[in-house]
């Protein structure tokens, strides 16, 4: 929205121009940040891949960066991340979707004014606090009726799930609120109940927004660090298809937790373990960046539809 500038005062115009470029620089800083992230990760990751082959990294089934014999197979970490992602999705996606339906279709204006900020608190609690909750309260509570290890994927998944509920619910609710009322009225006119309108009209009409919120929430679960570092433990473990329950009951290690483990160790300098940090970081960045991009693209589609 450019405005005609009728000022003929040279100094004022020059100053205006100077501010314009200063502000532009601030905006370009965000692109610089992305470039810096990619370069930082790439430089050390390339160093790492000079010593450990890319094939070994991507297909190796053992992760042991510091203990002899050292091995840098990322698959156990990816499968640990997958366990947490699936576990937290089982918690957050149904709850988040139902919450969005309630807020958008059932809740009164007044009730929504209380519930929405209350839900947003969930995303604002520091993740280290959630990690502590999982370790000290959730695990002992579940341990009374499940054969749990002290560190386990189940408590961590539940906590990550609770943390990402608002991400699912608020974006899904936005999408549902954007569904034109005429669609609802048409359905009511045919004699449908609110249940039918919600599940057969509103949800399908808002499906791209809902889908986008799911992807974004899962991406957040993949990148979540402190909850899994505290509560899920440090045991890199490949998925064992014969014992899926065991995965949740025992300690696992995610990509992020492995990074924290190396980061808190006294490995400073240029060793392979230090550089593996950047290789794992790059893997994590590529996965989450792709997911965020897909979510953004899917979301921008529904924004067009109902305008």
């Amino acid at each position, binding site marked *: *929205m450019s*405005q005609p500038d009728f*000022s003929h*005062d040279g100094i*004022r115009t020059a100053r*205006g121009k100077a501010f*314009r470029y200063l*502000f*532009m620089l*601030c*905006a370009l800083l*965000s692109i610089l*940040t992305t470039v*810096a992230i990619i*370069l*930082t*990760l790439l430089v050390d990751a390339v160093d790492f891949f000079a010593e450990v082959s890319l094939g070994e990294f991507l297909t190796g089934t053992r992760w042991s960066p510091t203990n002899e014999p050292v091995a840098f197979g990322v698959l156990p970490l990816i499968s640990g991340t997958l366990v947490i992602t699936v576990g937290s999705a089982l918690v957050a996606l*149904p709850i988040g979707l*139902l919450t969005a339906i309630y807020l958008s279709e*059932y809740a009164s204006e007044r009730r929504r004014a209380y*519930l929405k900020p209350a839900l947003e*608190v*969930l995303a*604002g*609690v*520091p993740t*280290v*606090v959630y*990690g*502590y*909750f999982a*370790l*000290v*309260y*959730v695990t002992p509570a579940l341990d009374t009726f499940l054969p749990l290890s002290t560190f386990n994927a189940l408590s961590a998944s539940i906590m990550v799930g*609770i943390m990402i*509920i*608002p991400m699912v619910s608020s974006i899904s609710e936005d999408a549902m609120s954007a569904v034109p009322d005429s669609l609802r009225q048409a359905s009511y006119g045919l004699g449908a*109940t*609110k*249940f039918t309108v919600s599940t057969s009209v509103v949800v399908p009409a808002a499906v791209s927004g809902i889908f986008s919120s799911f992807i*974004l929430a899962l*991406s957040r679960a993949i*990148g979540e*660090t*402190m909850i899994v570092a505290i509560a899920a433990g440090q045991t890199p473990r490949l998925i064992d298809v014969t014992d899926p329950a065991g995965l949740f009951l025992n300690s696992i290690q995610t990509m*992020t937790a492995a*990074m924290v483990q190396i*980061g*808190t160790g006294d490995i*400073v300098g240029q060793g392979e373990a230090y550089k593996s940090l*950047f290789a794992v*970081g790059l893997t*994590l960045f590529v996965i*989450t*960046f792709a997911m*965020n*991009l897909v*979510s*953004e693209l899917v979301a921008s589609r529904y924004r067009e539809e109902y305008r």
Partner: protein
Amino acid sequence: MATDTPTETDFGQVSRTKDVAFRLLALGATLIGIVSLAALLANVAVDAVGWLNWGFLTSPPHPDPYEAGFLPALVGSIAIMLLIALITFPVGVGAAVYLEEYADDGLLTRFIQLNIANLAGVPSVVYGLLGLGLFVGLLGFGYGTVLAAAFTVALLILPIVIISAQEAIRAVPDSQRQASYGMGATKWQTIRNVVLPRAMPGIMTGTILALGRAIGETAPLIMIAAPTTVFGIPNSLESKVSAMPLQIYTWASYPETEFQYGVVAAGVVTLLVVLLTINSIAIVIRNRYQQRT
């Protein structure tokens, strides 16, 4: 047809029951997260009783749980946060002003916008690696210093600050800009005298909420090798610094029950109280602004 009185069919009954059941199910789902968080908070508050006292807030950490204190972490967190505010506020507002007031709707603008949205979703641990590579490695700010910590977390919350500042600027009615131009003001004068003052409460609210997010960040600090336990309070930008979440993370790994259920609980409550205070300030600013308009 008029003589037919509508009777309750079995089908109608079933669909009504289903409707009510679904309503309750949705309400229940909405409350699950809130209720479980409330229960956990109640637990931690009860555990903190007796541990959270003046001695805890004014002492350095100690291996004996009864002597352990939170002061260096508390001061460290606040120092980092103030520096983050100094970095993110001007840059974030500048970027938002450019995107909302100057930029045309071209490819570059859309690319910047998409990039900012993506940056907001980059895992915090990756920002830690950026800090390690850029601020500690390339620029030599030193492992775990106030400077390195503040710049790293500042980059992390910058996208959030920009996005919320953009929303605040967008909410300023266009008629006010037109009125300013009508009086012969230049674009910069309009932004400085009309747009920014009107958008400032919204910008402040967004920035303060983002700072609340910054104070809870742990993983980036671990990545730039911030010491997990510091015994003195930071006295320069090059001091090694710890922070509340980092100290909590360290204590949570201690095996003694006094630490697990006492000291850490006191730390968690302190962190949450600081966070709550910050968020309340943001809400007060927002409410005062809403009353005036």
